[in-house]
């Protein structure tokens, strides 16, 4: 044990052993009231220097007594001397330990997270002073939360641009967390105090009192970190507690946690590390690290415990996006966690953070597949009235739009294709999906396409519950059209789904429209055919009046029926509605017009033509405009207007 050499700038101050011993004894707190009540480092600097030199002198003589090899004659004497020295060292070390603790405690105040921005611009020592002495402006954690809502997700640039704002209004710290986008150490303890701590630590360690030093340091700093935690609003919740909380409540907590975790890792822990490095600088390689880990291990575990609990909570679709937020935040923090906890002894913290991250990723994957099977099995069978868009379609499409907002993260997380083959193979209750034509798509894109496939599959099942086949087609048309519109409106989603599949979908709702028209209008238009009206072998005019009258009556009845029913059906998209009506008109109107042109004369030459020709072409044209509006027409089809 070599006494350290360079404590004093002026070696002429060195005190002889006897004087040194006297000084040590004078400050023996077990001996005098005065020594008990006063702290050396609280008082005169000269006294401090004197005491430290006395300690050095005692240590020097300790190493010399231990070197001397006692002859048998002098052993008792030597033993006695060495006992005296040892005793003096013990007294001095007990004293230094208390001084060390006192300096630590006096300079320890919880970090004011809000003041961090200010400290960023002020000089280091000034900021330290304001940190440790200014406690009047402490904010409650509530205030802190409110402020952060606006400040989250800042660009991370807290440089000069922000300066004037903060100068102008020192209480405004709405941007305080902008500064947490990278590691930023602050002075937890003023530099003068750090220097004192360092000079005590050196002496304790060289006298073999390293463990005592670490103990004191750890205990004081640990409670300082605890206090900062409380200030940051970091709660102590067990995993059981968290599993019991409502998801909405947890969403708020997740938001809060993300902010707190950034401040903890990048400011609090990083600054604790810096403080350890400063105090124990150059004393021993691993000491600073041991102290640091001792101080923050518990708090770090406590901090990560929350994210851990979230990562293992039951999976359900609504959790996806907050879990992704948490994942992204942790992902973003991980490089800094690795820097702050780089040492071997902090292994477990780094490992834990990485584990939580991978568990969150796993949870996101699990939720996605959970979502897929929920979409596939969504069981509602009551048909939506009027064949409009099913709530499931809206829900699923909104959900995958959100997914596409998280594309950056999910592309990395979703690594396997949807489990269409293995899980559902040969099963008539699940759809098929051709992957071959989707070559080159990311697994995430395949999952999104797959979700749309199973959504349609489910919808087709639902469409079978409509009694009217036309309405079933209309329902499919509406829903697939909605899917297409949603994809087109989200550039991210559109890019992932791809134009090929989008074309397929477009083809699909067009097909549904065609099927609808066929189902409804073929039979109506069938009334307007020529066949069956001409009477063979008759010379009069070749047209059977009775058959013609019957035909008009049938047509009128059918059209009225379709009109009445389908006016209550709904196509929510006005353009689609318009297109379908036009398409109907294009078939109906020319057919009616030409039928009317050819056969009107036969009816009008008879009795009560108005009983058979009830509608003009214009009547039909305007009647078609009633279609798919979603409410019953108030009167019957209006007769010809004259």
């Amino acid at each position, binding site marked *: 044990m070599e006494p350290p050499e360079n404590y004093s700038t002026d070696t002429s101050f060195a005190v002889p052993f006897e004087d040194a011993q006297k000084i040590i004894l004078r400050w023996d707190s077990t001996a005098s009231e005065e020594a008990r009540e006063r702290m050396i480092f609280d008082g005169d600097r000269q006294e401090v220097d004197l005491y430290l030199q006395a300690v050095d002198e005692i240590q020097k003589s300790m190493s010399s007594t231990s070197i001397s090899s006692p002859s048998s004659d002098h052993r008792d004497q030597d033993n006695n001397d060495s006992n005296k020295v040892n005793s003096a060292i013990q007294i001095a070390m007990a004293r230094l330990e208390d001084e060390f603790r006192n300096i630590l405690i006096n300079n320890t105040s919880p970090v004011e997270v809000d003041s961090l921005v200010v400290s960023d611009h002020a000089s280091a020592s000034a900021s330290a002073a304001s940190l440790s002495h200014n406690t009047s402006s402490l904010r409650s954690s509530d205030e802190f939360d409110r402020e952060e809502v606006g400040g989250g997700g800042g660009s991370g640039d807290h440089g000069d641009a922000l300066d004037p704002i903060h100068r102008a209004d020192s209480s405004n710290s709405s941007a305080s967390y902008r500064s947490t986008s990278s590691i930023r150490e602050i002075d937890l303890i003023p530099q003068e105090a750090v220097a004192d701590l360092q000079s005590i630590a050196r002496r304790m360690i060289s006298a073999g009192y390293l463990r005592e030093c670490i103990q004191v340091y750890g205990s004081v700093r640990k409670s300082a970190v605890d206090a900062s935690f409380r200030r940051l609003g970091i709660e102590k919740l067990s995993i059981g507690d968290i599993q019991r909380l409502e998801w909405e409540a947890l969403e708020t907590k997740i938001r809060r946690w993300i902010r707190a975790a950034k401040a903890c890792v990048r400011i609090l822990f990083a600054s604790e590390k810096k403080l350890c490095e400063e105090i124990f600088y150059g004393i021993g390689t691993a000491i600073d690290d041991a102290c640091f880990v001792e101080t923050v291990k518990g708090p770090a*575990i406590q901090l990560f415990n929350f994210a851990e609990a979230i990562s293992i909570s039951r999976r359900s679709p609504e959790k996806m996006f907050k879990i992704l937020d948490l994942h992204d935040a942790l992902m973003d923090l991980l490089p800094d966690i690795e820097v702050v906890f780089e040492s071997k002894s902090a292994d477990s913290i780094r490992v834990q953070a990485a584990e939580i991250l991978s568990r969150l990723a796993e949870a996101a994957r699990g939720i996605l597949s959970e979502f897929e099977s929920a979409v596939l099995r969504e069981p509602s069978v009551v048909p939506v009235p009027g064949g409009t868009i099913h709530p499931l379609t809206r829900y699923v499409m909104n959900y995958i739009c959100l997914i596409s907002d998280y594309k950056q993260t999910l592309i990395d997380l979703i690594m396997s294709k949807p489990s269409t083959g293995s899980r559902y193979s040969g099963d008539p209750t699940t759809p098929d999906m051709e992957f071959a034509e989707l070559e080159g798509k990311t697994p995430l894109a395949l999952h999104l396409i797959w979700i749309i496939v199973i959504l349609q599959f489910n919808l087709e099942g639902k469409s079978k519950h409509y009694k009217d086949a036309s309405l079933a087609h209309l329902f499919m048309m509406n829903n697939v059209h909605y899917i297409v519109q949603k994809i087109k409106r989200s550039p991210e989603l559109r890019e992932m789904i791809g134009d090929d599949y989008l074309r397929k979908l477009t083809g699909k709702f067009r097909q549904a429209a065609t099927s609808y028209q066929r189902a409804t209008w073929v039979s109506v238009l069938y009334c307007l055919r020529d066949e069956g009206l001409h009477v063979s072998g008759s010379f009069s005019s070749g047209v059977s009046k009775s058959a013609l009258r019957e035909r008009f009556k049938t047509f009128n009845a059918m059209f009225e029926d379709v009109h009445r029913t389908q006016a209550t059906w709904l196509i929510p998209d006005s353009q689609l509605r318009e297109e379908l009506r036009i398409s109907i008109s294009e078939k109906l109107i020319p057919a009616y017009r030409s039928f009317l042109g050819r056969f009107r004369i036969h009816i009008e030459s008879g009795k009560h033509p108005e009983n058979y020709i009830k509608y003009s072409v214009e009547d039909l044209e305007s009647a078609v405009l009633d279609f798919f509006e979603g409410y019953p027409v108030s009167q019957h089809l209006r007769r010809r207007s004259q």
Partner: protein
Amino acid sequence: MPATEHQPSFLGRISIRRNQVIAMDGNHEQELEDLELFQRHTGDRFADLLSPPDNQDSPLTGESFLSISWLRKLVDVLLCCEAEFKAVLIMGREPSQISKPPLDRLLSDFMERSVKVLDICNAVATGVDSIRQCQKLAEIVVSALEQKPIGDGQVKRARKALSALMSALTIDDKENNHSRYAERTWSFGRRGNNSGGNHKDRANHGSLRSSSMVVAKNWSAAKQIQAMCSNLAVPRGGESTGLAQPVYIMSNVMVFVMWALVAAIPCQERSGLPTHFQIPKQFGWAHSIIGMQEKIGEEWKKKEKKGSAGLLEEMQRMEKLGQSLIEFADGFQFPAEAEKLEEVAAQVAELAEICRRMEEGLMPLQQQIREVFHRIVRSRTEVLDSLDNGKVSQPIM
């Protein structure tokens, strides 16, 4: 995501075999055999713990009951049982098989229990950290008293560390004082705070307190254990041959191991920890567990009276040595008699040995506990997936 990825190959075989059997004739012979094996293995593993085959039940080997290395074996047994349990329960099984009543209810209780295991794992892992604090204090005692000759200085230094150590070791977890500031004692009264008082009475021992505060304030290890036992019903009738049986066995294994850990290692709020929970004697696998439960229960009753930090063998011995060294220190006069010094040297050597064992064993123990945590999480996820997949679907909106 294939569940079999990280499984040892024998588990893979079980699953393949089961698939074939079920596919071929659908009978449950194979299943009964797996179950039988699970019971036998569980019984055997605990029997080895109760009386180690090589009979090394001596404190010197460090293998004795409730020692660190014994606890490590205990945790290993839990890990083995867990792996086999999972193989029996989930692997290669159709989700619909386990999502039917009454198994779905039993499993959902089981999931509740496993969440409690997770919290206990965290609390115990933190408790291991607080034992490390004791180890650090004991190391100060050792390094002070290892010096020769022993003088006033060394004795005073050791005395100071000893009083901190003793209060850390004898702390009663009922006395939940969270506001303790420093764990090492001031060597003198400060600012009128009990000034001039006997510092040994004010020995501050925040170590077990402050670091154990990772979970919520009102969290109680004892209550968690109680809750884990509360709905643990013996499978009856038809259940007793089905999957209800392994769920019941595994629950008991978890409860027992967690209970033993909580009893051995400092843990937040252990007052009211049950000293006994009901396991029917008729089960072969339960014999050794019941035997150990009685032994630990007895120890715990003694402990509760004395108020020590835990039943961990090393801590108990540390406490005894500490007591004796405190007596030595309080009566110390320089120079000490040779005989006394010899005695102290032996005690210091023993304390040093305990420290060494802690140094070697505590971190691995903590890692194992962490491993339990991971395994439980993984199984929990798989079981929940199976339950969800097998379930009749519910609306998602």
